[in-house]
């Protein structure tokens, strides 16, 4: 009985996904659409052909990274809300390197862009970490504001120095093919970046649970005072965590610029940071959960986009689905805790009754 119950309890995140989708379904009714039909179409579309299936993984790629960005910091009880800004800074670094170093051969060029995006995102993030370490500033607010500043920087650069040669729209030129991440499956949008994202997820897992750095990060996250008493320098941890977290988000920028868009357009992918937060929460801040959740969100997007094109439902439904799923997950955590506590109490009462009858 106990074993079955534990299995049932661990599937709770799945139930919440269904609940979230159900709530979104209710919203569809307002527009006179049958949610069952819509969801059926969504699934059909998502898995219609290789292109779409591959697209799920392609869409999931940057989400894995922004999810890791929030989740990694969360392990230290730090709130990196600035992944969106770190993402944009990473994009800027990637596109700049792609434009300036375009004469270099593909492997070297990609390597430079990749590393540059991580360094740039990491540095941008470490400002927040440093402010937290030095001034004990509220990193929640700081990282939030840093995104707006990053947007300002990006808009300035895109309309100015980096603007396309035509000068018409606020976007850069298309980058040379030397800077395009090779496709994983031909004639799809899925590129090798997905594999890289999986490696990074594994890397995050390895750091957190198999290294001394990860030990420090988790100790600080679980009990800051205890970590201090153990001689762990929490300030160094803050800066390091925000650097790594920012680097993850910056790398997502490389993925999108060099893997999908092949250019940088103003205001693109504006929710990738927030979605990363949702994915991290859904995945319980664990790299494996984050990967799975990112794939789920990717499927929602791919299927959802096609549904939006073929029915009166607007694209905002995707955001609604994501939001409701998140809220359901939160409620499900609570219900799960309650169930565990109640069964503990019951067990105690039964034990006592047994003792008395002896």
């Amino acid at each position, binding site marked *: 009985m106990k074993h079955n119950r534990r299995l049932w309890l661990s599937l709770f995140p799945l139930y919440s996904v269904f609940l979230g989708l159900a709530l979104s379904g209710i919203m569809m009714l307002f527009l006179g659409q049958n949610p069952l039909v819509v969801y059926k179409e969504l699934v059909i579309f998502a898995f219609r052909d290789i292109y779409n299936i591959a697209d799920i993984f392609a869409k999931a790629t940057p989400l894995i990274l922004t999810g890791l960005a929030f989740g990694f910091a969360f392990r230290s009880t730090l709130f990196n809300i600035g992944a969106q800004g770190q993402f944009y800074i990473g994009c800027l670094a990637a596109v700049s390197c792609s434009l300036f170093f375009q004469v270099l051969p593909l492997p070297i060029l990609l390597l430079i862009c990749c590393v540059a995006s991580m360094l740039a995102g990491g540095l941008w993030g470490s400002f927040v970490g440093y402010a937290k370490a030095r001034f004990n500033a509220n990193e929640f607010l700081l990282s939030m504001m840093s995104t707006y500043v990053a947007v300002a920087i990006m808009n300035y650069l895109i309309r100015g120095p980096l603007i396309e040669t035509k000068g018409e729209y606020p976007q850069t030129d298309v980058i040379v093919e030397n800077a395009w991440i090779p496709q994983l499956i031909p004639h799809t949008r899925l590129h090798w970046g997905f594999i890289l994202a999986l490696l990074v997820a594994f890397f995050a897992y390895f750091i957190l649970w*198999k290294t001394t750095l990860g*030990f420090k990060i988790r100790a600080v996250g*679980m009990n800051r005072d*205890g970590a201090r*008493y153990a*001689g762990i320098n929490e300030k160094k941890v803050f800066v390091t965590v925000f650097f790594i977290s920012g680097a993850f988000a910056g790398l997502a920028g490389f993925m999108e610029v060099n893997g999908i868009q092949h250019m940088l357009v103003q205001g693109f992918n504006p929710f990738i940071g927030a979605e990363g937060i949702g994915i991290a929460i859904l995945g319980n801040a664990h790299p494996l959960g984050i990967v799975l959740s990112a794939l789920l969100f990717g499927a929602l997007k791919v299927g959802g986009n096609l549904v939006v094109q073929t029915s009166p439902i607007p694209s905002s439904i995707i955001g609604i689905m994501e939001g409701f799923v998140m809220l359901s997950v939160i409620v499900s955590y609570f219900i799960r805790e309650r169930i565990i506590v109640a069964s503990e109490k019951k067990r105690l009462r039964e034990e*006592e009754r047994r003792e008395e009858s002896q």
Partner: protein
Amino acid sequence: MPIKETDLAVELIGITKYFPGTIANHDVYLKIKKGEVVALLGENGAGKSTLMKILYGMYQPDSGSIKVNGKDVKIRSPQDAMALGIGMIHQHFTLVPVHTVVENVLLGAGAEDKGRASVSEAVKEIERMGKAYDLEVDPFAFVRQLAVGMQQRVEILKALYRGAQTLIMDEPTAVLTPQNTERLFSFIRDFREAGHSVIFITHKLNEVLDIADRIVVLRSGNVVGELLRSEASERELAQMMVGREVADLSSEVKAQEKDVHKKESILRVENIKVKGDRGHWAVDSLSMNIDGGEIFGIAGVSGNGQEELAEALCGLRAVSEGQIILRDNSLVGKSVHDLIHEGIGYIPADRHREGLVLDMSVEENLILKRFSSSEFASRGVLSEKNIQLYAQKIIEDYAIKTPSSVTKAKALSGGNQQKIVIARELGIASSLLVAVQPTRGLDLGAADYVHRALLNVRNEGQAVLLISTELSEVLTLSDRIGVMYRGRILKVFRREEADIEEIGLLMVGVTHDET
């Protein structure tokens, strides 16, 4: 002697209460007469606080009933309790430090004066009660500026302002000096003379015999005995509390002393000054020496700089002036990490907050301070096998009761959690072991274990610094005792010379020259 129902202030009938993982109270029956002081005696975790919180309406019993003044009542909240004349002085004061005394008293004033805060009336009442019961306090002082003894007065005034006729006091003397304790007891006697009742929760045997008319002993949630003061002895009460014969450690300590060979000086502290959180000198020109093979105990009321001294010794707080020398090495300015390597072990006062990471496993907690050493990690990567082997050995050596080495620390009992801390710190303390309130919150068995562990460290030749507010603990274990007051050590006694009365006076700063 039959007790008439109307003679009873309070009666608890068949109270049972469950918490996740334990049975806090099991079928408890308790009668409190008017004009009586009843002591509720038991170890930590026996269920005394829980029972009284049920009486005060903060918890609801899972079964059972309560009678007040002979009538059946339902106490669903502290407001119900206060309306029935039951007041509670909590162990951890329920005061708002950033507010004034009046504001705190008014907070507990109840729904009668909603809206406007009738400050002037409250001030008058506070002053009147203060004079009547010798509990005077400045109504406009900020609570955080008051000394602990004064804060307790505010707690009492809060209850009296609401018309309490039965006072529940939860471990009230934990933070008091012997002199303050006497003042509290004389208040209790005055209160009883006025026909009111006091329920006094404690685990201190000596106080119980001093103040109680009747003693009720709880163990593991059950009432195991009830005695009148005249019938009770410390030994008998201790036995009831624990359920078996309790060893008297002090004779063993004396016997062991002969076998210990003292080494030369290990720790020399010279005129150090350490700043406290409020910017004042918490440690103010303090000096002391500790030799190898000796336990140096520091007695004192909490808040006189002991915690800051301990923090300075393990690198958590900066030393502004003076020198700390450990075996010819200066410690000033070194980080916590360095000091761990110097061989200083630290058993902290609050093991949940400072000593363990509860969400980490037993083995992770065991290596909490040495995870980067070559034994457990190479080039930044943790060696899981080595860690597991080490943990299993320690679990066996120290008999730590745990389902496995990967069980989370929060699942273990208090005593076993402290064993993790002790095992870890003994492994680190090659020179000095600093133990702050090491038996806080532990039952007698676990406390005994801790004491023996400290003695072992001493017997092996290391230096031990014991800081505790439990005077009996300091007196039993220490070879030498220093009394700390306002950041410095006023006098050092050898065990044989220790005089409780003089120590009590020193704890409040009264030195020989002043008497």
